[in-house]
């Protein structure tokens, strides 16, 4: 429960920090860190407009997407406190509950019948499919490392004994940061600021969503960022007492948001055709983690 509340809290200002960082990096002052949340609340107060060509799928998808992410967040522990849902192998369910939400968004994009949205849907499906092996190899390696198979037990049993283990933590952070960027369709892979439908991935899928639904989708993006931030922080918090772990959690989320902002400020978006190569890097880094774990456990002897 603690973890859930913390993630909700962070989700209200995470995107604000990213935008603020980008503004400062380009020499502007930028809006307050709660501005994105204010925009979302404004959208929530509005009604939604539905095209006559769409079916009920288009209407339920944003809600289902939102609920899937909320459910995934419920599984994330904080230090010694398990998430509301916690059982052996819960990270598999975590991955597929997210995939379910994404699946509904993809079919709702196809539901509109627009050629743009179909294009975005196919890109989103491809890139999230490519991300999946990286996530599972990463979590599998840590399951092997600790001998446990649920988020809570993996993270609370996680303590770094050797230098290699620290390196594993570092690499896992790298993988999760990039996964978060890809899953949220952020910079090196997608450009959230563009107005050009042809280059978009996620934004083009939600072109037809409006009002409350759009607010929900935007808020879900914030939630997902905070969720990945929470997983990353768990690699560092492990079993610290609450007085230390909560400030540490916030600091890690803050640094994560700044890193996202900096990546977005100082590089150009990759060419669409190069994205799969880039995403495969994650899988190879995850494999490195896997071999590192084998090394630490002495399986190579």
């Amino acid at each position, binding site marked *: 429960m603690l973890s859930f509340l913390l993630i909700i809290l962070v989700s209200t200002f995470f995107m604000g920090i990213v935008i603020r960082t*980008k503004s400062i*990096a*380009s*020499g*502007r002052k930028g809006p307050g860190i709660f501005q994105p949340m204010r925009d979302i609340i404004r959208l929530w107060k509005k009604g939604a407009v539905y095209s006559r060509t769409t079916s009920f799928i288009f209407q339920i998808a944003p809600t289902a997407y939102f609920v899937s992410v909320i459910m995934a967040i419920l599984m994330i522990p904080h230090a010694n406190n398990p998430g509301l849902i916690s059982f052996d192998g819960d990270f598999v369910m975590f991955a597929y509950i997210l995939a379910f939400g994404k699946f509904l968004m993809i079919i709702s994009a196809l539901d509109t019948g627009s*050629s*743009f949205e179909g*294009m975005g849907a*196919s*890109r989103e499906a491809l890139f999230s499919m490519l991300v999946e092996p990286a996530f599972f190899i990463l979590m599998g390696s840590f399951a092997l490392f600790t001998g446990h198979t649920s988020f809570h037990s993996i993270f609370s049993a996680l303590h770094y004994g050797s230098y290699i283990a620290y390196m594993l933590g570092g690499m896992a952070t790298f993988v999760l940061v990039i996964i978060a960027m890809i899953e949220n369709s952020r*910079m*090196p892979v997608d*450009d959230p*600021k*563009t*107005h*050009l*439908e*042809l*280059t978009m991935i996620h934004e083009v899928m939600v072109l037809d969503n409006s009002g409350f639904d759009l607010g929900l989708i935007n808020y879900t993006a914030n939630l997902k960022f905070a969720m990945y931030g929470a997983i990353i922080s768990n690699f560092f918090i492990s079993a610290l007492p609450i007085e230390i772990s909560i400030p540490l959690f916030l600091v890690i989320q803050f640094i994560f948001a700044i890193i996202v902002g900096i990546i*977005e*400020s*100082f*590089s*150009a*978006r*990759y*060419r*669409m*055709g*190069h994205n799969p190569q880039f995403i495969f890097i994650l899988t190879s880094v995850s494999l490195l983690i896997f071999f590192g774990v084998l090394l630490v456990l002495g399986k190579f002897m």
Partner: protein
Amino acid sequence: MTNPEYISIFNNQSILVKEIPEHNYTAFKDININLLKGNTARHCINYFGYILADKIKLICCIADDEAHKIYVSSCFVNDNEELSSFTAQNHNFEKFEREIHENFGLKYSNHPWLKPMRFAYNRDNKNKKIENYPFYSVKSEELHEVGVGPIHAGVIEPGHFRFICNGEQIMHLEIQLGYQHRGIEQLFVRKKKLLERTTLAENIAGDTVVGHTTTFVNLWESLCGHTTDSSLNFARTVALELERIAIHTGDLAAICADMAYQLGNSVYGRLRTPIVNFLQEWGGNRLAKGLIRAGKINFPFTNELAKRLIEIFDAYEPDFDEITEKLFMLPSALSRMEKTGVVTYNEVLEIGTVGMSARMSGLNRDIRYSHPYNHYTSIKHTPIIKNNGDVYARAQIRKEEIKQSIIYLRELMTKVPEFKKPENISLNPMPDTFVISMVEAWRGEICHCAITNENGDLLIYKIKDPSHHNWMALAQAVRNNDISDFPICNKSFNLSYCGHDL
């Protein structure tokens, strides 16, 4: 000498209409096709028709960049004759013949792509509408069509792009324009006052105000037999180069925005401002509207302005160099620009592109060097040529032309000519005269033609914006590229919709 094939004239030279040799259509066609055959220094700068005594008079102007001359010839045809097209032998004429066909209904038997061009309000066949434009389409299970526009995602100007794609890969792009047609050429004839016409010229394309207005006033002064004062030539040249710097800088910002390089976007965007603000300081308008006038200038260029401009450049250059070095060294940016949107030398030659869109692929077309006008006669200009024809080449041309323009302007600022207020300006067009005027604006060659009748009234005013040819180069550039790279290709050409639609 018996009937010469063509009359050769200089840029901005006025001649009597009857001096232009007339031929029958077959001879006319052969002459012009032969002029272009195997000679890459020549291209068609204007080919148009107008109605004269129930017949259609066609006039074709071929520019020769090496001889610094323009070859003009003409021909009379009836609108019910079936003609064999120039385009079947040389694609330089493709757009021109489509335009003639659209306006007068001339029947071409072997034109490969005889589609409407801009849906002029006085077109011959009113049944051809924007709604029923005959798009090229492919019946296929694998390929799909993507229609973009007419409303631009960034709400700039309207134009419709129809892609035929294989997944993410573009197989074919067809660009349909004409949404911006305002009938500018007809307005030129109908509006009688010089000020009205100058204002029209300023509004042909909002991003090339100086370019089009300078072409117009050069043409007008030549048409009236007026010799341009050196201080006016100076001011026009300065304005042209300033416009080049401003728009090129803005384009670099936009290219950065399209590849999501935020730093480049904001720095170049900021750098454009002092340049356009200088135009405001000089002439009271950031787009330089009201600055260029035939026979006079309301805002003479003074030594104080020259000093200001040097200060602005001193502040501009270090920042520009710094961000340019970053941009052209950034791996992620290079990977977006290099080998994206390639148009080969043979393709640009066949299309007959002008300006940057020719120089990017090694084709040397720069009016400042080949048909000098205004103050360019005293500047030794070397065109900047790149050979790759990709987005990177177009970005590099912009970068280097900005630097070159600054060098020229710094040089010019050392010798600002004394301004003498011109007296007794009487600008009355000469009767039965033909004038052609070309200017190298930032986008490329602008060509205006005017013909007067026996009373000195305009019979026809013909405008050709560089976008006229260059849109086809864009359609070629995106073939076999990712559809997600279309925006950056489009931006790297930065063509004008209203300049094309007129």
